[in-house]
């Protein structure tokens, strides 16, 4: 290839201290020397350090992730690509993925969250899919922690700032507060896209001699070693890491999105991949690995926005809004023309080679030459020791009789509705454009968002869910519950699950108790997925979420996508009219372990998470789905945080129109607090017209789901006889403005 004049680069000497500073162990260094047959130079050391980082290599998680079921009828692309893809019929498919941006968001909340959104969007459109909806799963520290409000404000503004500007609606998500995340917030961003089945693109480099092209924004020094940062625990030093956080430019990404989708309608592309973590290095190496080829880059051709950048910096920069593509030879100029139309750089920076080696040149001089396999398949894989913590038994011990019963259950209900975890998240959602592209049938606030597919009668439903507290108390059961709740949320709107993506947020894998949590969660998710028939099609692992030696709760979050064959049939959680009967599908058990009530009212995170029987779960979900498909449900709402009383209150007050009351009778023989606020699983509150009750009974009986008539919609109050009675407007007042009240109080 042609050479361009560039200032010769002299490689600094590789010392033991330098190796350690790159986060590589001595053993890993020995392995590098073995694989290369020599010492790596400085640039190569940088390349190894990012490619072998936990973030890029999955070296601690890989052996466990293999357990997850990844196959299913609808699966077109499972894990291993930029995103997973499922078939949705009519020649269309859905691409989706969730990814963490935890560390950067803690250090610089606006840009950290914004670039998290930007990154996941690129993962979707690089597959040839137009992004149609984003969601996010957010976890902050306790609301009273001095840093929480700053982080909350910054993260929400950053998500909105990027998503709104690029024109992809943010249609939902979850926001949770707990002191476990005081020093390690979680920002997990999810995006869903739609592609034509015959126009799916992959990150692959094939065909020796084909040009490798760089498109999008110019490269700067931002984000160098971001992937390495994401693979370390935090300490007080982390603040100094601010310069490793990238800055997002949603406008450039919007241009990149449109230009790429325009290019993908042509027949000029071999493969394309986003430059995410570890930038140019990981994109070229991964593409070469998938294509069984080599790649050669001339780094002096990379468009730069700073002067004097070294090859090391160019290779490791994590500047945003860039893509790498392999075009068919001879089509370079055509490709360039499309990007020029959108005022973007498109430059040939290298070519595909046969020798399965990653080579980088700088002004003609070779600065790195590493076999692709050494960076990918030969990367270290660790079977890290796992051990159940000695404290787990004590943690699970909850003697219900020692938990005092509250005197006024109505006060407790209001307290729960007013708590940051249960209160309306409108303050968050109204900062997101959840309507752009005019497909949003159900936006934020429902059990799942519903996005119609224009030109068809179908819709996709999406939800993101997680519960770190359950996983902390019993990671295996917590893993099951995470998957089960997600599928239940889809069932509540009438959608059958097609697949899920996950973000596995944990502490340091070097701690045996964290590895135990990790492996237990994976096994739980595996069993949940298998029982409910939901394959895992993509995902991401985020380790080292700990500060000064204290890990966060093990927090897997999942984003699940389901299909509604008739969008008109979708159901929302809110009661519709007075006189409708309120019915519970499922059964309430006397249990309080891990509940929001136990934490909020009694300050305790103890016990075992709610019991689950996956056959019962399936029966309840199937009953709900069949009833919706038959058009007899007027509303459906999952019972989760805060239990039955909170679910009923949300059905009364959560809707966009005016509140409706309900008259309920509960006469179970159990502790009233468990009856009202316990979080027994596999429960859905539905409402039906009286005339349809018989049909609902038939469906539930056939599926084997318990059914209990709770009462009827109507009146100005939520009356749960004989336990509590409150005006719905009072409940709405507690719930609706709770976040804003707290935020404003601080300002004043």
């Amino acid at each position, binding site marked *: 290839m042609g050479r361009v004049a560039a200032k010769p680069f002299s490689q600094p000497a590789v010392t033991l201290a330098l190796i350690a500073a790159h986060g590589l162990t001595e053993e890993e260094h020995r392995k590098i020397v073995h694989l290369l047959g020599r010492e790596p130079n400085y640039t190569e050391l940088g390349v190894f350090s990012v490619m072998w980082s936990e973030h890029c290599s999955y070296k601690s998680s890989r052996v466990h992730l293999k357990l997850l079921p990844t196959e299913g009828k609808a699966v077109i692309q499972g894990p291993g690509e930029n995103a997973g893809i499922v078939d949705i019929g009519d020649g269309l498919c859905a691409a989706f993925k969730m990814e963490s941006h935890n560390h950067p968001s803690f250090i610089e909340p606006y840009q950290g969250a914004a670039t998290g959104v930007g990154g996941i969007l690129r993962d979707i459109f690089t597959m040839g899919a137009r992004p149609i909806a984003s969601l996010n799963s957010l976890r902050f520290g306790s609301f009273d922690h001095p840093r929480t409000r700053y982080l909350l404000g910054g993260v929400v503004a950053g998500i909105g700032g990027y998503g709104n500007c690029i*024109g992809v609606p943010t249609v939902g998500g979850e926001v949770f507060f707990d002191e476990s995340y005081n020093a390690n917030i979680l920002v997990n961003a999810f995006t869903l896209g739609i592609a034509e089945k015959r126009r799916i693109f992959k990150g692959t480099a094939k065909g020796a001699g084909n040009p490798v092209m760089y498109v999008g924004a110019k490269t700067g020094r931002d984000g160098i070693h971001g992937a390495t940062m994401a693979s370390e625990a935090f300490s007080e030093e982390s603040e100094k890491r601010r310069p490793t956080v990238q800055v997002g430019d949603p406008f450039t990404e919007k241009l990149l999105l449109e230009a790429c989708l325009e290019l993908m309608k042509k027949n000029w592309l071999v493969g394309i991949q986003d430059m995410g973590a570890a930038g140019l290095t990981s994109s070229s190496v991964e593409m070469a690995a998938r294509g069984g080829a080599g790649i050669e880059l001339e780094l002096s051709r990379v468009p730069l926005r700073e002067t004097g950048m070294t090859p090391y910096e160019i290779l490791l920069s994590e500047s945003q809004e860039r893509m790498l593509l392999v075009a068919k030879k001879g089509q370079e100029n055509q490709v360039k023309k499309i990007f020029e139309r959108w005022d973007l750089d498109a430059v040939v920076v290298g070519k595909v080679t046969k020798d399965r080696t990653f080579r980088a040149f700088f002004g003609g001089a070779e600065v790195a030459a590493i076999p692709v396999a050494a960076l990918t398949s030969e990367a270290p894989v660790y079977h890290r020791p796992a051990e159940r913590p000695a404290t787990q038994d004590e943690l699970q011990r909850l003697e219900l009789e020692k938990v005092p019963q509250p005197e006024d259950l109505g006060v407790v209900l209001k307290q729960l509705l007013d708590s940051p975890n249960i209160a309306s998240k409108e303050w968050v959602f109204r900062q997101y454009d959840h309507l752009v592209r*005019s497909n949003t049938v159900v936006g934020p606030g429902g059990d799942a968002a519903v996005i119609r597919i224009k030109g068809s009668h179908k819709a996709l439903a999406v939800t993101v869910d997680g519960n770190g507290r359950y996983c902390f108390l019993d990671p295996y059961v917590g893993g099951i519950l995470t998957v089960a709740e997600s599928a239940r949320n889809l069932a509540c709107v009438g959608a059958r699950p097609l697949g899920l993506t996950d973000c596995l947020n944990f502490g340091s894998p070097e701690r045996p108790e964290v590895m135990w949590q990790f492996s237990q969660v994976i096994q739980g998710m595996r069993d949940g997925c298998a029982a409910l028939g939901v394959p895992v099609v993509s995902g991401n692992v985020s380790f080292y979420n700990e500060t000064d030696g204290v890990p966060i709760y093990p927090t897997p979050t999942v984003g699940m996508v389901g299909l509604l064959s008739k969008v008109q049939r979708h159901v929302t959680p809110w009661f519709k009219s007075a006189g409708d009967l309120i019915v519970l599908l499922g059964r309430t058990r006397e249990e309080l372990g891990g509940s929001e009530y136990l934490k909020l009212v009694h300050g305790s995170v103890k016990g075992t998470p709610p019991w689950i029987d996956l056959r019962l779960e399936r029966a309840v979900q199937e009953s709900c789905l069949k009833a919706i498909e038959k058009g007899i449900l007027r509303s459906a709402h999952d019972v989760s945080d805060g239990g039955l009383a909170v679910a009923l209150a949300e059905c009364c007050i959560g809707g966009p129109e005016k509140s409706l009351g309900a008259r309920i009778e509960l006469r179970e023989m159990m502790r009233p607090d468990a009856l009202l606020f316990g979080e027994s699983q596999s429960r859905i509150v539905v409402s039906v017209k009286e005339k349809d009750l018989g049909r609902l009974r038939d469906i539930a009986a056939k599926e084997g789901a318990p059914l209990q008539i709770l009462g009827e919609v109507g009146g100005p109050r939520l009356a749960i006889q004989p336990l509590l009675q409150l005006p719905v407007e009072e409940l709405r007042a507690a719930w609706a403005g709770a976040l804003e009240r707290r935020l404003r109080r601080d300002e004043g």
Partner: protein
Amino acid sequence: MRWGVIVFPGSCDDQDVYDCLKHVLKQKVEFLWHKDRLGRDIDCVVLPGGFSYGDYLRCGAMARFSPIMQGVVEFARNGGLVLGICNGFQILCEAGLLPGALTRNASLQFVCRQVHLRVEEIDTPFTSAAKKGQLLKLPVKHGEGCYYADPATLERLQKNRQILVRYVDGKGRPTAAANPNGSLENIAGVCNEARNVFGLMPHPEDASEKLLGSEDGAKIFSSVIAACGTRGKRAWVA
């Protein structure tokens, strides 16, 4: 009639308007590229919502210099119908086709929510299908929608009845709580003196189908369709 929807770099709601016009209202519609000249056969030009040029500078400040805008100004001066929605409204103000300016929301936050609009004037090609005082349910979604005009301009707007829609509550009252962005006098949309250029912050294209929660937005588009149908092309020459 024929609609043209301008695509600026960074336009986001261009597809929404296009789909609404083409598939819901069964109109002839085409996209107009910002680098091109404005074609001669367009009856109504729509400047859609979004973040033209990223809006890193003042909203709309860059887009007004797009090559196509010269044609749009000329088109408007000759009586052509021009509708600016959200970012389009901002661009029209920056281009001097509409009076006043749109500044940062009083809350200093982006706001996406349903609002009620009261139709104040119906003798325009954009509101003729509504009744005077009719309430429309539409969404807003913007960070800089706080309408401002100096006292002299405001007086002129009132005198010429150029304020076409106001933010009101469900009962039609222009209260502070009903105002999503702190706009002067709850102003949500204004037209020019000749009444052929209209800009509004709310999005009629996202509220023209029952499935999306409201069909009220279609009133705006059907007014234009009626105006073009009955009076012929470029009928609103002053």
